[in-house]
């Protein structure tokens, strides 16, 4: 590729980072405005959704008389699964043809596609975590959930999923841009891999042979880590941050060049 | 009495005219020379002539006049000389440039050609130059004045021989006649007045098709065409860059009457952004054929156009125009071949 872009003036590394920080912040605010609008109803629903879910689950299980099961409360289990799954699915769906959706923004010379993708996931991650936290605190006040065991591990798990979802999103963005039919494979893929997320079970509930299989999934590691922080490590399988990080790095190694290629090939018409 | 002499505007024609007039005046007394190329001209001049007998002359008759003469009986001479003879003579006597001279010459040859088919026509060409003057005057008297008395015939012969004294044959007589007519101009540069380069080549191919009969075919080199941007004669490729416009025009030469096929060969280079060219053929100012061709980015290709030449009086003009503005590309006209197909 003989293409070469020279954008002047070049600055020092520090200036670059500062600029990128400013750009991402601007993008996040723009994103937030377009997502939530000016009336605060949008923000309200972000926080209301997990609470509604928790309420519905509590109601169902109370009616069925199954309030306790397998050592952890069903409400916090569902709340955690729901929040993590929302973040994961959100990243994947929003990555579909992200280049096309944001093409007009790219006219701003100090802004790159990567900035857009980072800004979006950062907003998703922040709002998701805030929603989860608010819901958890509310439920905790009502005594529906216990105190968390290790908030730092939970936050780490959440960050890890953010990283994983973002790096996976790079590949999705690139592939859906390079091959138009690819976007139709994303929803089925998300559905089929649902069992591999650990959203509907805890690994320790499984027989050891099944445990071995599901622990291949990096998302299961993240879910276990998050719930480990929430309920205590005795309820979680042996998750490994390094294993997930390895996946993330591998996905970035594939996703970034692929995205570059997609951007190179990209045409609006 | 009317004596008609058709001929190319060249030395032999004028000598023959002069000689025939000497002979005819023996019978008719002083004659008026009446030159006309159309019926209208003829009508006007005829009215102007008074009551004198007429020596009619035409060098490039229009179709209506040709048809009139084809219908009426009577003696007539048609002199057709070689093209280069016509060209140098018209250049010397009328100061024409080579292309204009060639255009005039082809118009004359092509319009006169049809008269050769008329009954009673005495056709004269360069072959007559080697006849002795005595034989020529006998031939002339025999062809034109066969009903005259022997006395009149003898007087005619004497007059012709006396006018051309010291000359053994027709060639010498014509030379002497021309020297008198052109005076010093003739001495200066007869050779420089002959055609050169592409124009000479064009004249040769043109002439060849009169001598070798059917099928008539001739290839015109690019140098007889004109580059319309500065009206200079075509030399090498033309840059297409510029607005849509007429690129090439020419050659403005007459073709013999009939159906013709023009095969145009052009070379295109560096024409990456494409273009469409319009090729059209006019008989003077009347379009007779047009076609549109899409130009490739490069390469040599040819295309054909068919048209009818109904009156050789009107010169054939072939043009190439671009139909779109161009930012690049060059077009070279390799040649245009004209082939008679009917």
């Amino acid at each position: 590729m003989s293409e070469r872009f020279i954008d002047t003036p070049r600055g020092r590394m520090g200036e670059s980072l500062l600029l990128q920080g400013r750009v991402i912040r601007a993008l996040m605010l723009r994103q937030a405005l377009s997502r939530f609008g000016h009336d605060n109803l949008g923000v309200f629903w972000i926080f209301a959704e997990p609470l509604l879910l928790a309420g519905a689950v509590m109601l169902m299980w109370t009616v069925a008389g199954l309030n306790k099961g397998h050592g952890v409360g069903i409400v916090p289990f569902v709340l955690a699964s729901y929040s993590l799954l929302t973040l994961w699915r959100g990243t994947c769906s929003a990555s579909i043809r992200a280049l096309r959706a944001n093409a007009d923004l790219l006219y701003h010379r100090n802004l790159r596609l990567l900035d857009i993708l980072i800004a979006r996931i950062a907003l998703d991650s922040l709002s998701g975590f805030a929603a989860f936290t608010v819901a958890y605190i509310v439920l905790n006040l009502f005594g529906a959930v216990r105190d968390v065991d290790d908030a730092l591990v939970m936050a780490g798990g959440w960050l890890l999923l953010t990283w994983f979802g973002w790096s996976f999103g790079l590949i999705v963005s690139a592939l859906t841009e390079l091959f138009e039919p690819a976007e139709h494979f994303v929803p089925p893929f998300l559905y089929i891999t649902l069992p591999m997320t650990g959203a509907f079970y805890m690994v320790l509930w499984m027989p050891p042979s099944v445990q071995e299989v599901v622990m291949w999934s990096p998302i299961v590691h993240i879910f276990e880590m998050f719930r480990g922080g929430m309920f205590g490590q005795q309820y979680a399988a042996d998750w490994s941050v390094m294993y997930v990080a390895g996946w993330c790095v591998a996905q970035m190694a594939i996703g970034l060049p692929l995205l570059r290629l997609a951007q190179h090939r990209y045409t609006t018409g | 009495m009317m004596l008609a002499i058709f001929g190319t505007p060249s030395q032999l024609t004028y000598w023959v005219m002069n000689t025939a007039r000497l002979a005819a005046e023996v019978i008719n007394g002083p004659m008026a020379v009446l030159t006309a190329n159309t019926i209208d001209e003829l009508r006007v001049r005829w009215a102007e002539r008074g009551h004198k007998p007429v020596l009619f002359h035409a060098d490039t008759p229009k179709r209506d006049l040709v048809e009139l003469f084809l219908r009426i009986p009577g003696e007539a001479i048609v002199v057709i000389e070689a093209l280069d003879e016509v060209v140098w003579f018209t250049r010397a006597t009328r100061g024409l440039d080579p292309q204009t001279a060639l255009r005039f010459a082809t118009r004359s040859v092509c319009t006169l050609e049809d008269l050769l088919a008329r009954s009673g026509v005495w056709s004269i060409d360069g072959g007559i130059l080697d006849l002795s003057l005595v034989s020529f005057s006998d031939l002339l008297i025999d062809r034109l004045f066969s009903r005259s008395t022997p006395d009149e015939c003898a007087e005619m012969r004497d007059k012709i021989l006396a006018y051309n004294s010291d000359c053994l044959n027709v060639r010498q007589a014509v030379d002497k006649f021309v020297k008198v007519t052109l005076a010093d101009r003739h001495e200066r540069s007869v050779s420089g007045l002959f055609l050169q380069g592409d124009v000479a080549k064009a004249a040769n191919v043109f002439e060849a098709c009169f001598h070798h009969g059917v099928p008539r075919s001739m290839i015109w080199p690019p140098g007889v065409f004109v580059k319309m941007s500065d009206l200079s004669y075509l030399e090498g490729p033309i840059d297409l860059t510029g607005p849509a416009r007429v690129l090439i025009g020419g050659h403005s030469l007459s073709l013999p009457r009939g159906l013709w096929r023009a095969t145009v060969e052009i070379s295109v280079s560096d024409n990456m952004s494409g273009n469409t060219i319009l090729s059209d053929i006019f008989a003077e100012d009347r379009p007779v054929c047009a076609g549109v061709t899409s130009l490739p980015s490069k390469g040599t290709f040819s295309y054909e156009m068919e048209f009818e030449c109904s009156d050789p009086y009107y010169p054939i003009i072939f043009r190439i125009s671009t139909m779109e503005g161009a930012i690049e590309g060059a077009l070279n006209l390799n040649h245009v071949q004209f082939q008679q197909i009917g």
Partner: protein
Amino acid sequence: MTGAPQVLIQNPSPAATATPIVASRCIRAVNLIKEYHTPVGVKRVLDGISFEVAQGEKIGVFGSNGAGKSTLMKLIGGVETPTSGVIERGLTMSWPIGLAGGFAPTMSGLDAIRFIARLYGAPQGHAAEQVDDFAELGRYLQLPISTYSSGMRARLMFGLTLIANFECLLIDEVLSVGDQRFRKKCHEELFVKRADKAMILISHDQGIVREYCQQALVLKRGRGRVFDDLDLAISIYRTL
């Protein structure tokens, strides 16, 4: 604009820290080729376009529909990358002036102003003032862009480009929209107040190109050629 204009338009990339390239003060395109992959094969939309605009110079771009103008604009704007060829941006370059993209309809005019001001590091209060001086939207600035008329939108979009102090303006037919007053104001902002800026002016308006440009790029079927003789360029464009 206040602040540090030089840093605004910089594009951080890995190469930036390694070898700072001192580009000459111009926008230069060298042999740009752009190919699209279509179901019927590869289509070459731009084929060997080269031109150069130095500081303060103005170049007009002519071309009939389908000649590659919009693709060229996308390449210059950096939205798409050329299949091969080089674009050197030695001047800070605007996005296409008047381009009505990149703003969600739920955003208000003020949101858009803040976004651009943040993106280019301009003080927001001043930016809002500056834009509204031009756009004259008043209280409409508080309302979502989706409620604007096309004229209001055009005024806002043009106003936004005034926030950042670009050295080279990319102008695509902005002068052909809007009413007489809007066009007059655009004209004033571009050709009077910013007469010292470089411009790439994609326009059907031969008069404007003749008046303000030093050269013209004529596009035809993806090919392009720069003419210093504007009259020749215009005569070609007229019969394209």
